[in-house]
């Protein structure tokens, strides 16, 4: 840990020295704290709100008494006719005009001119929400079987699955990590198309703050990316102290970071966010973009590693005849596989996996009776195909 810190320090020094005659220095703070005229210039309340809404939605999907209307309103934060809805327990969320749905598959880079696919992805989530009620909840008192929805034991807990063994609440939870968090961070807020939009560069160079705010628009965009990862942290200025504070990207960064093969990935990500933000303050846009590339790569790894992890754990559980445990793992794996579509290759306009590649994986998982008859060979093949695009092995991810 301390060696790593020294390393990062050296790295920063190297970066600084490499700036040569350039007199600007990048002042990277210890915590994610940036101020202007004594006020914090960091804000991501909208991201915190969306994580809160997604949290309530996912929780409500496990409540067997919920109806589709309320669940849908949690997704869209409006009524079927577009009116104001108050579906949340947290009054602040009801007062908010934001919603999960409006930011699903909604990044500038991937979906601004690809609204057809965006609509398709938004509809996927809606269909899982509807089916949770119409297929699963109505069969809650039946034992699940190949081809029919119902309940299934996972150890001493009960899981509720569709006819293919998929838990829709897990599909929604884990797919949102890609479709909401990763897409917004990597394909929207870290993108030069957003950071440099309009007069953002001139405004940032001349420190012209957004109307009535203490931040420049470019600073704010970067912070919004940060908020999708750390917006639910107990102390967002020092989020590594309590990693795992939400049920989404933060939680799974914590899980990957706990695997000794990937130890330190959370620090790398936090440092890149910090340095990138400090670079914006210093007007060093090349340094900013280098950090954005680091973030895209590391965040994509989090998704890919967890996808492989759950497919492999599902495989082992199937071999042990533990269908309930296997289906739970595979349901989580399904969501992480779905999320691959949103991961962003470094220095590229492309995702690590095309839509058709991800659709192919999903089809393999859900073919026929789905998890009831998926083979170990298929799970291995998908795992290998995922790991092949990265520098980790299936075995490293599976731990």
């Amino acid at each position, binding site marked *: 840990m301390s060696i790593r810190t020294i390393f990062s320090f050296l790295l920063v020094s190297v970066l600084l020295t490499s700036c040569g005659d350039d007199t600007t220095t990048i002042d990277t703070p210890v915590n994610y704290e940036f101020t202007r005229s004594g006020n914090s210039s960091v804000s991501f309340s909208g991201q915190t709100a969306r994580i809160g809404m997604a949290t309530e939605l996912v929780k409500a999907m496990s409540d067997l008494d919920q109806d589709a209307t309320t669940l849908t309103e949690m997704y869209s934060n409006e009524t079927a006719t577009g009116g104001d809805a108050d579906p949340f327990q947290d009054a602040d969320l009801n007062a908010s005009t934001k919603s999960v749905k409006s930011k699903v598959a909604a990044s500038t880079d991937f979906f601004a001119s690809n609204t057809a696919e965006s609509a398709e992805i938004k509809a996927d989530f809606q269909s899982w929400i509807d089916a949770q009620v119409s297929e699963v909840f109505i069969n809650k008192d039946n034992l699940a079987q190949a081809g029919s929805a119902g309940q299934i034991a996972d150890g*001493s807990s009960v899981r509720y699955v569709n006819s293919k063994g998929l838990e829709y609440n897990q599909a929604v939870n884990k797919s949102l990590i890609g479709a909401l968090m990763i897409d917004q961070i990597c394909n929207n807020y870290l993108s030069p198309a957003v950071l440099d939009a309009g007069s953002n560069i001139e405004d940032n160079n001349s420190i012209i703050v957004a109307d009535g705010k203490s931040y420049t628009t470019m600073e704010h965009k970067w912070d919004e990316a940060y908020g999708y990862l750390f917006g639910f942290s107990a102390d967002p200025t020092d989020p590594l102290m309590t990693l795992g504070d939400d049920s989404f990207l933060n939680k799974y960064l914590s899980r990957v970071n706990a695997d000794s093969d990937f130890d330190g990935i959370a620090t790398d990500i936090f440092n890149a966010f910090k340095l990138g933000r400090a670079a914006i303050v210093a007007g060093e846009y090349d340094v900013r973009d280098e950090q954005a590339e680091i973030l895209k790569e590391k965040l994509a790894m989090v998704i890919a590693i967890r996808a492989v992890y759950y497919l492999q754990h599902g495989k082992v559980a199937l071999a042990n005849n533990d269908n309930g445990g296997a289906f739970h793992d595979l349901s989580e794996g399904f969501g992480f596989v779905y999320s691959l579509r949103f991961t962003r290759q470094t220095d590229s306009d492309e995702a690590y996996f095309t839509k058709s590649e991800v659709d192919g994986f999903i089809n393999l998982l859900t073919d026929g009776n789905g998890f009831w008859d998926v083979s170990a060979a298929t799970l291995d093949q998908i795992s290998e195909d995922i790991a092949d695009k990265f520098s980790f092995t299936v075995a490293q991810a599976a731990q």
Partner: protein
Amino acid sequence: MRSIKTHLVIFSFCMLVIISCGGDDKSTDLNDSFDRSAMLQDWSDLMIIPAYESYLDKLTELRDRKNDFYNGGSIDDLVAMRSAYLSAYREWHKVSIFEIGKAEELALRNYSNIFPTNVEEIIANIDSPDYNLELPSNYDAQGFPAIDYLFYGLEIDDAALVTRLQQENYKTYVSDLVDRLYDLTSQVLLDWQNGYRESFIENDGSSATASVDKLVNDFLFYYEKFLRAGKIGIPAGIFSGSPIATSAEAPYSDIYSKAFFLLGFDAVDDFFNGVGHDGREGISLKQYLEHIAIDNQSQNLAPLINAQLQSARLQASDLNPSLQNQVIDDNNKMLLTYDELQKVVVLFKVDMLQALNIQVDFVDADGD
């Protein structure tokens, strides 16, 4: 302390290197020189099968007393039925660690002893005749914890309880719960008596699917999840941050929870040390560890494990007969007991499994 441990690790590593340099498959030979098959035979014949036989006897007794109660209906019948319930519940703790084969297939433990019981679900089932006790969502509405509620939690007054339990819908439910415990357990015993014993003993290799590896894993799973966490850790609030007294075992009869914990603890201790159901000693994990220590000229873990088991037992002896009350009155004693139990987990799960070259086949649940 730390450096000693590091040295030990380095030392053992050197040993491994030396052994593996020694030529052909010496290391596996050393492992194989312990008679696993004989140990499996003692496990079956001295421990597992006698424990199931005795448990089924107690369940037969409970079923008979339940039938007497519904044929008669006096307070004496109630008292006899309760007493049979307590005997069966005690005996249950001798078999719960052996969740393998048919017991595993049937999920015997899930249907027998998931607590805290779900009173709302029990009432709903009593009120509607079409409940399905096979559903996993009914795990917590059946078995001993549900009976504990029905026999001790429904009414304060015994005469009132008799009247209540004699109502037709209560009668159906109580009978179903008692008969189901009996039916499931007889299937398990029958399976051991009709071939499973032989295949269990024959499967004497050392792979993830071999009997020793599997039962040792089941034993550890029981120790970690059901003894350490279920009986002590969860009510003490280890996992939730604040104590939950009502999550103690059998909170309605109330005064037996420490005894049940100790019976489960005894079962663990006896299994490790090879003490059979009637007290006869058989081949055990303790001997296996001794054997390996001699062969490898390494430290024998068995005395360390037994010393720590003894510390845990000593700490637990201080507990109130009602763990529910212990949580309320002085939860610190629960926490201290948990800490001693946790030290055994490390010895079992890390040190012992490494020595026996057994892989852990269960992981901590994700929490979601």
